[in-house]
């Protein structure tokens, strides 16, 4: 093989401008949307929205949704859907609560057990989809109900008839792993910021923002890891290939079944991670946790440039899509608008994103 790595320039081709190149990136829509939404709130919302505490205020729910959306985006790029992730949050929350409260497990055991339980359900989802060849939409719709029902029945069994399991906070008190999944990170740093007068403080001298919400760190880590996997590893290539054309990928030696099942497991584990964070934060687990979150996560992924048909999209796009979400949900409370406009926004954004993605797809594939 020749080491000549500089491709000859074809004189028939015009230099492609930076903008034309950027137009082909899947996350373009999400970035543009984020800019638009930011501008909108810059003009309509109370100034306190974009202070440090205001920013963390909307980033926190954005990050919680984002943890689900990153999983959903990876799975969508791999060509499948998972409608059961919202119910999975409740189910994993129940497993986690039962481990911690009813069985007195330390977090070092409870967290792996919860992730394993979620992963198992995810692999069952994936296995059924692969074996039957049915659309994942239908299979996971069934699990949407099965898992929600199991959470309700299970919690009642664990608590003498209540659909809420309390006492998580007491049970994990002093556990060395708890700070990794709850509260705020970099507390010392923020105290130091406050002392140095870099950030706002209360009269007592404690900072108004005690630290970075832990879910935001997890969200960023997941988004970076997912992007790295998609763009810079062979597995990333397999995910795109499995979603683009499973048959062609399998004929080229891509282990499509393994990739898809692994993606179902990953998505379920994302939901379980969110459940752990939420349960530790609230100190209790509830059978209604994650209600309808599957739709929001899929919408965030679509806003982020994922095609419903698979094979195209990005984790960074889903990252921005989730932030748009958090911004609008919380941002509306800073404005004079009725908060229920959120739903209207949701639908409109989805519609725009799908139309936009479709146009981008035609551009990329050169369809006319």
């Amino acid at each position, binding site marked *: 093989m020749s080491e000549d790595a500089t*491709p000859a320039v*074809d004189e028939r081709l015009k230099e*492609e401008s930076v903008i034309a190149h950027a137009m082909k990136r899947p996350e373009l829509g999400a970035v543009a949307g984020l800019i638009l939404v930011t501008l909108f709130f810059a003009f309509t919302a109370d100034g306190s929205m974009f202070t440090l505490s205001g920013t963390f205020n909307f980033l926190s729910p954005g990050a919680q949704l984002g943890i689900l959306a990153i999983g959903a985006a990876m799975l969508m790029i791999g060509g499948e859907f998972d409608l059961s992730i919202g119910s999975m949050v409740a189910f994993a929350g129940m497993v986690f609560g039962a481990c911690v409260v009813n069985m007195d497990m330390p977090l070092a055991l409870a967290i792996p057990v919860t992730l394993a339980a979620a992963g198992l359900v995810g692999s069952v989802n994936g296995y059924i989809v692969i074996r039957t060849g049915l659309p994942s939409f239908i299979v996971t719709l069934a699990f949407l109900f099965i898992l929600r029902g199991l959470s309700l029945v299970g919690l009642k069994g664990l608590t003498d008839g209540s659909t809420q399991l309390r006492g998580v906070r007491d049970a994990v008190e002093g556990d060395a792993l708890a700070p990794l999944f709850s509260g705020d990170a970099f507390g010392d740093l923020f105290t130091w910021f406050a002392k140095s007068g870099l950030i706002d403080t209360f009269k007592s001298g404690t900072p108004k923002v005690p630290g970075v919400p832990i879910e935001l760190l997890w969200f960023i880590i997941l988004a970076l890891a997912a992007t790295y996997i998609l*763009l810079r590893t062979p597995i990333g290539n397999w995910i795109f290939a499995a979603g*683009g054309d499973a048959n*062609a990928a399998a004929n*080229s*030696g891509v282990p499509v079944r393994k990739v898809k099942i692994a993606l179902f497991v990953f998505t379920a584990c994302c939901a379980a991670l969110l459940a752990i964070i939420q349960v530790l934060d609230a100190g209790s687990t509830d059978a209604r946790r994650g209600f309808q979150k599957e739709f929001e996560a899929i919408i965030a992924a679509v806003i982020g440039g994922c095609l419903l048909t698979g*094979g195209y999209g990005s984790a960074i796009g889903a990252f921005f899509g989730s932030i748009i979400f958090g911004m609008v949900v919380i941002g509306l409370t800073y404005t004079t608008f009725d908060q229920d406009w959120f739903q209207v926004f949701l639908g409109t954004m989805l519609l725009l994103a799908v139309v936009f993605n479709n146009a981008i797809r035609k551009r990329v594939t*050169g369809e006319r």
Partner: protein
Amino acid sequence: MGDPIIELDGIEKHFGNVIALAGVSFDVRPGECHCLLGDNGAGKSTFIKVMSGVHKPSHGTMRFEGKPVTFDTPRDAMEAGVATVFQDLAMIPLMSVTRNFFMGREPTKGKGLFKRFDVAKANAVSVQKMREMGISLRGPDQAVGTLSGGERQTVAIARAVHFGAKILILDEPTSALGVRQTSNVLATIDKVRKQGVGVVFISHNVRHAMAVGDRFTVLCRGKTLGTASRGDISADELQEMMAGGQELAELEGSLGGTI
């Protein structure tokens, strides 16, 4: 010409009560283009799927470089050196040429957790290989969807050869192409053959087969009707064998040999 790279003997394949292949024997030698001809439904597709590890034969033996082998998966076949370019080309239009070129066989650098897709190398190789086949890409990240049918075919062939194919199976590579693109693909086949690769050319177009074929095997209703070398058989005879010697003879006159 040397010993056969791959030999298949008495291959049968049953799907439930359907007998798709009822005893097919076939071999390919290095540097030759062996044409597998047959009408629709003759079993060409099933046969190449057996050869490429997609299906397991119900009966029959397969030898690769003299040793008996069984291919459990397409990957096994590929690792042995049997590469197949299916009609769908195993190309994904939304993905870039580079990502398609290395799909399933990505070059990596780094170790353990840091083992990653060597994108720079992959880009350089794919652009270079395309140039050798006479195609200038806009860039390695150009989506395959923007290439013409002939160019896609060439990408698929270049990919197979790059990954060390000893046997290259082409499933009707010219069936959906225009005249110029067809001749480009036939020229590519000739280049590949000169590198010592054994080419299996599946077609029902006798003219295309005659243009590049060294040997011709006709498949009819799941059985081989025999193998002939170039020069020993005429296009008309091949045509007749493919049709099983029926009806076509009457049509021949009115169509004036245009089939």
